[in-house]
């Protein structure tokens, strides 16, 4: 029973994946103007444009082009980057760990701060925590991420001098990069036993993590607060209280477990936000991830790279949503047993 539910969920992600592939294909081929000229880049002449047209099969019919696109994808090929000269896949794979490390840290930071904040805000309405929660939520909806990130850099680097210069993942003047094992610097430096570099990498990571996480925090905190308020106002909580259960048991075992489902379900939206804002945050902090790669590709009209990035992010997002769905199934017995 449970296995079937899991399989159903996985199958449910397939239409999204197909849709994503079709849209990326349309974005890269069905353009006003000449896609071959776009792929060949701004510096191309007529002969090289023609060469690109033939090598990409852009002179063929649309269904044939789509078939070629699919078979290229199945061979793991997203074309070549004009700016780096490497294949787009190699570029993305090389830069992905930096983005993943930042995104994961931001997500963890957001959850660790937002969930207790939302729970406390709901448990004590109109307390200081409740007002703090409301202020953060309002701020998260009104402040541009890139602006807050720049303010942080100004205050914590320039004025206070607490943060290191935002020059990417590790200041290479003082530290050496560890040999790559996982691609996550925090882990690789520990494996290499280089604690100074670990501290260096951590210091570089804090500001981008907080500025990215702050905005993921707002929707999680708002949803936690709302779901906790709903759970705390329900009949089963009243009954639990009337039966004399300890306040902590009521709050965590009864109310929080019920509120958790709503919180997990907002994570899908949070991921959409995190993956998008990653681009802006990487830009501010000179972070060598896929987002800043995509930005320089867009500026340089490096066409294949941008489309590769869009496809990568979309596939990652579909898969993350699938994970959220599966976790929601684990938490909620009603979902698990299809009742």
């Amino acid at each position, binding site marked *: 029973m449970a296995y079937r539910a899991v399989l159903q969920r996985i199958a449910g992600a397939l*239409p*999204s*994946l197909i*849709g*994503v592939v*079709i*849209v*990326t294909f349309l*974005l*890269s081929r069905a*353009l*006003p*103007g000449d896609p071959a000229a776009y792929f060949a880049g701004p510096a191309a002449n007529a002969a090289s444009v023609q060469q690109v047209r033939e090598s990409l099969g852009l002179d063929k019919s649309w269904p044939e082009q789509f078939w070629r696109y699919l078979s290229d994808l199945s061979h793991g090929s997203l074309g070549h980057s004009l700016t780096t000269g490497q294949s787009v896949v190699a570029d993305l794979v090389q830069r992905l760990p930096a983005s993943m490390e930042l995104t994961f840290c931001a997500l963890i930071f957001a959850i660790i701060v937002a969930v207790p904040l939302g729970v406390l805000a709901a448990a004590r309405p109109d307390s200081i925590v409740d007002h703090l929660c409301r202020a953060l939520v*309002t701020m998260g*909806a*009104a*402040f*541009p*991420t*890139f*602006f807050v990130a*720049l*303010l942080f*850099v*100004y205050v914590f*680097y*320039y004025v206070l001098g607490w943060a290191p*210069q935002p020059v990417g993942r590790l200041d290479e003047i003082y530290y050496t990069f560890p040999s790559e094992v996982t691609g996550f610097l925090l882990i690789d430096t520990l494996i290499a036993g280089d604690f100074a570099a670990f501290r260096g990498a951590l210091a570089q990571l804090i500001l981008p993590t907080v500025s990215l996480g702050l905005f993921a925090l707002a929707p999680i905190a708002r949803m936690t607060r709302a779901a906790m308020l709903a759970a705390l106002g329900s009949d089963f909580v009243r009954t639990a209280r009337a039966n004399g259960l300890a306040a902590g048991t009521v709050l965590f075992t009864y109310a929080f477990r019920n509120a958790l489902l709503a919180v997990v379900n907002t994570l899908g939206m949070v*991921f*959409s*936000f*995190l*993956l*998008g*804002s990653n*681009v*802006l945050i990487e*830009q*501010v902090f000179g972070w060598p991830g896929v987002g800043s790669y*995509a*930005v320089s590709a*867009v*500026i340089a*009209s490096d*066409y294949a790279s*941008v*489309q590769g*990035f*869009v496809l990568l*992010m*979309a596939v990652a*997002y*579909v898969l993350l*949503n699938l994970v959220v769905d599966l976790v929601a199934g684990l938490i909620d017995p009603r979902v698990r047993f299809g009742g």
Partner: protein
Amino acid sequence: MAAATLRDVRYAFGENPLTAVALAIFLLLVACAVVGPALVPYDPLATNSDFRLVPPSSTHWFGTDRLGRDILSRVVVAARLDLGMAVCAVALSLVIGTGLGAVAGYRGGWIDNVVGRLFDTIMAFPLFVLAMGIVAALGNSVANIVIATAIINLPFYGRFARAEVNIRRELAYVEAARMGGNGAALILARHLIPNIMPPMMVQASLNMGWAILNAAGLSFIGLGVRPPEAEWGIMVSEGASFIFSGEWWTFVFPGAALVLAVFCFNLLGDGLRDMIDPRRRT
């Protein structure tokens, strides 16, 4: 049609005094956008090499940028472009989204499936990333920023309109209109869409702030708006390079304008919701 009475208006202001503040900011922003270029003390594009990176003072309230341009003038003039992009994007997605969603909700069947799939596919992308991809594909221009922002907002309006039409489809007044021999197009245009308009407008005003953020984010990374042009996102991005020499005013004022605008639209959206939909009052 749920017309807002004076009592509803009073309720909205009384419930949240900030709504009145938001209304004042809104009027200020609109004034900047409409007559701003005539009011500003300096030409927003005029460079002056004698006054580069001057801190805020009585002559230059917000200071000057690296080319000696007056930042106050640029921030005020930029309101037209920033708000214009957001208004156009929201209007586009409101019209197209409502149309698609209403037809899908009224007709059901395969149209509903196709439209639903379309919205699902848009939502399968991280939205800002999709916007980047669209601008990269269509070409780097302000018009395409508007189109990209409109496309990524489409599902919110479409799904909402679909649900609202779907619950009204079998109501007596729609049934009566059908009995009277009206076609589907007429029923949608004359009876259903006017009825779902108030909640759709609330949705639109809540969405404005997000559209502003999105368009500014795209220009922050260098898409759409071209450099000499005054726009908040690109001004923040140009000012960012002076953080390390401490010229904070180059990015703080345009950024603050952005925050103010988004904040104002979010509050107005909440106020409007309180006026139009009393059930959602807390």
